[in-house]
């Protein structure tokens, strides 16, 4: 211990201490000053932004997702408010010492459980952990149920509003409309294709908040940007025809125990898709939207078109003037050996005129006609009809099909191509191809979204050839034709059936009992307004597998409704009977 002997000595020591303290304080001031300079000069922007974030709360304003409507304004997709019922387990209390209150609380609990479609035991279990302040009791509650729940006035029970996409028409339009994911972004169909237009633009409000632990908005706003709602999308689909096509397909698929069916109906004058449906379908409102039936098979799946290509290969021959409709073709006894392979017909037709080759759907006849046309010309004609090229409908997942380069064709490939084998296409391509026969030889661009811009058609065939083919196609729906079941009472219709063997994926080659039945037709023949293509995949062979049998009735049913709903003038032979005052099935009303 230091002993201080005099007052002077005391102050001497004190001065030394004072100096140390002074130097220390000076050092501290220098450090503080340096820190102040650093914060003010170098970190100013960062700190100001952090301060703004603490003072301001940015609230995102979500836009309303646009609706999807059919051509007549019927609703196909809409965002609807749904609610999640939340509970603060610490506040919810269904117990009271007073028996009267206890009875009331018990009653409320029962009502709440009923509205939430839960048992009281499940409700108790969810609320058992008193530390949980944010328990989701149930999601996707309808607004009226939410009102009933909040009217119970149970402390600790609240609701959160969210928007959920709702598809009132379910299965029949599911493949076209598609659906959105849980994040509200389109995942399939039009929801995906038009996501940007449908989604709109988010807005935001910036508000000042207080500095408490749980921040509270104290009112004054800094900026506001209102959200821009998504645009409504109007499709070319006619919901009535869509439902009719779906129901007719369902009946055919179930009757013939087929795997699936697809149908496309086009307005031949405008190229608009009036119906495009597949059966089986799926429920876009459900949660498990997975599986093979989610695809819009009319645009994503390809198949060998078969006999529905015969009128097109014949058109190529007629255009080159290598045959006329009365030229005789010897189809022999139903089997024709060509390049070491057999081409077969279902029946022996002998010598028949070119026009009857299509009527009876002779493969031999088509092959023999095509021998007079070069591969180059045949392939070019198919391409002009839209085969091997996407239709331009821009539907997600659309494929172009396969049409091999004619330079790679062998003679047998050329021959097979004339009756629709050795190539593949989608159903919508086939429907579009037949608009040529309905439009005086012009191919119509097709659309699924309603637009005002006129579409320019492309000439593919001369009017004379088109007229000749149309007459031949009409004969297919005669009593002796393969498409008699496609006839529509009071109207003249034309079309072509197709029955294609499926490829045997296990053993290779063509399967002996797996077929695809198709029909593509148009009507009324006097002034074609509609084109429809139908495909039934893999019917049970013993129940029937010919395209005319499977798909013909679907065509007839949907077309008769289309003629009726679009007030199309009847041109059928029945009307001529009435006009000639002969005995007919229908009555005459004079205007």
């Amino acid at each position, binding site marked *: 211990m230091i002993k201080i002997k005099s007052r002077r000595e005391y102050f001497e020591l004190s001065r030394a201490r004072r100096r140390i303290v002074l130097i220390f304080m000076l050092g501290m001031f220098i450090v503080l000053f340096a820190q102040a300079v650093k914060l003010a000069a170098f970190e100013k922007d960062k700190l100001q932004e952090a301060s703004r974030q603490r003072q301001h709360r940015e609230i995102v*304003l979500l836009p*309303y997702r646009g609706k999807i409507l059919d051509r007549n304004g*019927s*609703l196909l997709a*809409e*965002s*609807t*408010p749904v609610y999640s019922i939340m509970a603060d387990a610490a506040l919810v209390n269904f117990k009271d010492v007073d028996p009267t209150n206890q009875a009331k609380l018990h009653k409320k609990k029962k009502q709440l459980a009923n509205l939430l479609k839960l048992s009281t035991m499940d409700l108790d279990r969810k609320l058992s952990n008193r530390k949980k302040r944010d328990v989701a009791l149930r999601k996707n509650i309808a*607004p009226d149920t939410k009102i009933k729940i909040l009217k119970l006035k149970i402390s600790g029970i609240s609701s959160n509003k969210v928007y959920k996409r*709702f598809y*009132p028409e379910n299965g029949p339009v599911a493949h076209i409309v598609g659906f959105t994911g849980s994040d509200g972004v389109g995942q399939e169909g039009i929801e995906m294709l038009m996501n940007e237009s449908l989604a709109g633009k988010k807005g935001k*409000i910036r508000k000042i908040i207080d500095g408490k632990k749980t921040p509270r908005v104290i*009112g*004054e*706003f800094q900026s*506001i940007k*209102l959200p821009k709602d998504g645009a409504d999308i109007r499709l070319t689909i006619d919901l*009535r025809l869509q*439902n009719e096509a779906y129901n007719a397909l369902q009946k055919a698929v179930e009757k013939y125990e087929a795997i699936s069916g697809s149908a496309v109906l086009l307005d031949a004058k405008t190229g608009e898709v009036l119906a495009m449906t597949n059966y089986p379908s799926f429920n876009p409102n459900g949660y498990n939207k997975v599986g093979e039936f989610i695809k819009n098979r009319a645009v994503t799946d390809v198949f060998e078109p078969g006999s529905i290509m015969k009128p097109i290969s014949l058109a190529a021959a007629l255009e080159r003037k290598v045959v006329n409709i009365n030229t005789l073709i010897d189809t022999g006894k139903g089997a024709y050996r060509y390049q070491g392979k057999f081409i077969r017909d279902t029946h022996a037709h002998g010598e028949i005129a070119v026009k009857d080759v299509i009527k009876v759907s002779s493969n031999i006849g088509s092959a023999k006609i095509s021998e007079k046309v070069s591969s180059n010309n045949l392939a070019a004609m198919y391409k002009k009809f839209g085969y091997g090229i996407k239709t331009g409908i821009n539907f997600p997942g659309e494929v172009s099909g396969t049409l091999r380069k004619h330079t790679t064709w062998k003679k047998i490939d050329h021959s097979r191509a004339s009756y629709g084998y050795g190539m593949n296409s989608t159903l919508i391509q086939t429907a579009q191809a037949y608009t040529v026969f309905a439009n005086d030889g012009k191919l119509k661009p097709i659309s699924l979204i309603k637009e005002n811009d006129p579409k320019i058609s492309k000439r593919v065939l001369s009017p004379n050839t088109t007229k000749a083919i149309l007459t031949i196609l009409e004969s297919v729906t005669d009593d002796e034709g393969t498409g008699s079941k496609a006839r529509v*009472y*009071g109207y003249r219709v034309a079309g072509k059936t197709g029955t294609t063997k499926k490829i045997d994926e296990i053993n290779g080659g063509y399967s002996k009992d797996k077929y695809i039945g198709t029909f593509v037709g148009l009507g009324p023949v006097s002034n074609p307004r509609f084109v429809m293509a139908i495909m039934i995949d893999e019917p049970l062979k013993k129940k029937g597998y010919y395209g005319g049998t499977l798909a013909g009735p679907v065509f007839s049913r949907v077309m008769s409704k289309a003629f009726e709903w679009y007030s199309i003038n*009847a041109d059928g032979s*029945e*009307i001529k009977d*009435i*006009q000639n005052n002969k005995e007919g*099935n*229908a*009555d*005459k*009303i*004079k*205007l």
Partner: protein
Amino acid sequence: MKLNLILFVVLIICALTTVNFKHLTRNNFAELDVESKKTLDLKDQQTMLRIEESSESRIEIIEKTAKHKLNMHIPNQKEKKFIIR
């Protein structure tokens, strides 16, 4: 001196105007907020009504009503009448 006085009065007026405009902006914002909420509620109601309308106007419902309440049926071929102009 006079200039100083004038500037002082202008300053006071500007200050009061600023306060007043801030107050008006706050009021307008509050109104906008209320109206936005009303718009959203009305949109929700419109949505629900539209869905109700779409489910009530379904062709199956119309056909069911026509069949059961009005004793109507879809005409068969013999009952169909063609209008010939």
